[in-house]
């Protein structure tokens, strides 16, 4: 079941178009930064965007900070939201279930395909950003093998930078796994993929709005977007694990609850489409 879903994903032109669109924004930003040499004023703009004018090897992180709050979750919500509702809308769901395939296995296969999409998108963004960062940004006197400067002002060796960058991208993928599970659950409930995607985005927008309100502080630790940007803490010295750990546990809780809800919903659902 999983190979079938992966094959469908990788052969779909829409998959690669979406990834290209996600990748386009950080690529455009890199070109603009290189041409104008104008970074955001301190305290404004995505993380690491001012630092990349000095050190282009940090651009994958800046690119992650650009796509993580909006572009990536939209793409994940659209992809995972289509998992079940898309098949139902096309009238192919009942044919899928005619095969001797358990519904849980189908759900898992759909989720795996969504996550492979996220991993692909993140890898393409990281690779593009690294190449553009090294070629277009940074001080020419700085080599890609030289130590970089952590957020705390200490030296980070290249192996440390690579390891922490890997952790940051892994953390971002985990955050998107939570989004995918919400969209997958909604996909088992509604009849159209758009409704599932908009429902997921509604939750994320609501979470982002509530995070700005002091009155909603009691809810903050439970909001799905609360710890998304915590990957910046991996580049402090020493690493500040508090929000990374909390963000990981929170995303795992979202995975457990919404995957469980998708299972409860889909396993007993009457399928006529």
């Amino acid at each position: 079941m999983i190979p079938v879903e992966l094959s469908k994903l990788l052969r779909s032109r829409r998959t690669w178009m979406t990834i290209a669109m996600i990748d386009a924004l950080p690529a455009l930003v890199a070109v603009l930064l290189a041409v104008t040499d104008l970074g955001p004023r301190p305290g404004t703009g995505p993380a690491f965007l001012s630092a990349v004018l000095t050190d282009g090897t940090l651009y994958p992180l800046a690119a992650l900070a650009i796509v993580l709050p909006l572009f990536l979750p939209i793409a994940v919500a659209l992809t995972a939201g289509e998992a079940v509702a898309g098949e139902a809308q096309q009238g192919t769901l009942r044919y899928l279930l005619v095969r001797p395939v358990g519904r849980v296995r189908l759900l898992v296969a759909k989720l795996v395909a969504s996550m492979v999409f996220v991993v692909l998108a993140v890898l393409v963004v990281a690779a593009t950003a690294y190449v553009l960062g090294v070629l277009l940004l940074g001080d020419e006197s700085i080599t890609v093998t030289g130590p970089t400067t952590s957020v705390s002002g200490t030296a980070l060796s290249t192996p440390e930078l690579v390891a922490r960058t890997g952790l940051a991208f892994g953390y971002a993928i985990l955050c998107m796994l939570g989004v995918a599970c919400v969209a997958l659950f909604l996909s088992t409930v509604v009849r159209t993929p758009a409704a599932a995607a908009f429902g997921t985005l509604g939750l994320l927008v609501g979470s982002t709005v509530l995070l700005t309100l002091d009155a909603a502080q009691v809810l903050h630790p439970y909001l799905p977007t609360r710890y998304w940007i915590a990957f910046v803490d991996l580049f402090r010295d020493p690493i500040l694990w508090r929000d990374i750990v909390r963000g990981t546990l929170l995303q795992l809780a979202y995975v457990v609850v919404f995957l469980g809800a998708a299972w409860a919903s889909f396993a007993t659902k009457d399928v006529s489409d």
Partner: protein
Amino acid sequence: MPEPRSTAPRRWAVVAVVAALLVAGPLAWRARPVAADDATAAVVAERVRASADASWSGLVETSGALQLPAADELSDLGRLLGERTRLRAWWQDDRRWRVDELLPAGEHGLRRDGVGLVSWDFERDRATVSRDPDVRLPRSSDVLPPALARRVLDGVGDDDLERLSDERVAGRTALGLRVRPPSPLSSIDHVDLWADRETGVALRVEVYADGQAAPSFTTAFVEHDPGRPDDAEVGPVTGQRVDVEYDEALDIADAANQYAPLRPPGSLVGLPQAEATDGAVGVFGAGTTQLVTIPLRGREAEPFREQLQAVPGAAVTAERTVAAVGPLTVAITGSDDGGLLLAGWVTPEAMGRAAAEAVAGYEYTGDR
């Protein structure tokens, strides 16, 4: 084939129970009861005072509602007192410490290395080395709970103290204490603090202005380790590409203190000059009833005066402008050109008198 519909309620019940446990579990863990301690208020205060040499590390969150006038020279102070901030600190002793203000996209670090002060700004990729004078503007290290609690208890007698119920702060048992300012001049109604039962280090401090039910400023540990931090953790900024600058003056107060050819009076509104006073900037009173006077040149005073006049409720006269921002009262003398900036925890009425006395009492000492 779908499973029988009769199994659906059971499946949803399992999901609901798991979700409830995931939500309630952390709440229940945090709400576990605290063992009562029979220490008196005076004993708790003494433990806090005695913790001055304690070492520790931790993560602090502050929340302030003190909206200072938006003058460039005070921008960091305005953020510190008027916004929500996260501070990560390592404290060996008063001479060796590190406090990082964590920003969503960077970090402002302060490191005291035994001799001088190094401030680090990630987004500007710049480190600044300066001396660390006693007379200066408040900074991140001053709003850490241990530092603020010790300042609050300065000059406070046992009669001004009251025991509060104990609480759990940053996972540690903390003894509660209410401090009421001993002087009627203070604009602070009371300060509540909670100190670690084992070490006496203050873990949470809440400052209440006169007539306010909610705290105007709160600072509290969310993580606290009573152990001594390693030398490496309080070590210097070592990034190879860091631009290092050397500043002769730490901030606007230090610059005025060093270079303004003036001397402050010996007391203001009955508050004696503090020992820290060693130049043109005057420090008067102590603890919860303290004010400072800073001589400003025209180019610094005029924009600040404009901002202060725009504060709701500001009292503007030809002699001075006085405004209260929560329990913090700020005044600037004159109506144009240079003037004396006064700020402190005193009532607006006392601040008005202090401003008049300061104008009359400052002495010109010749060019510096």
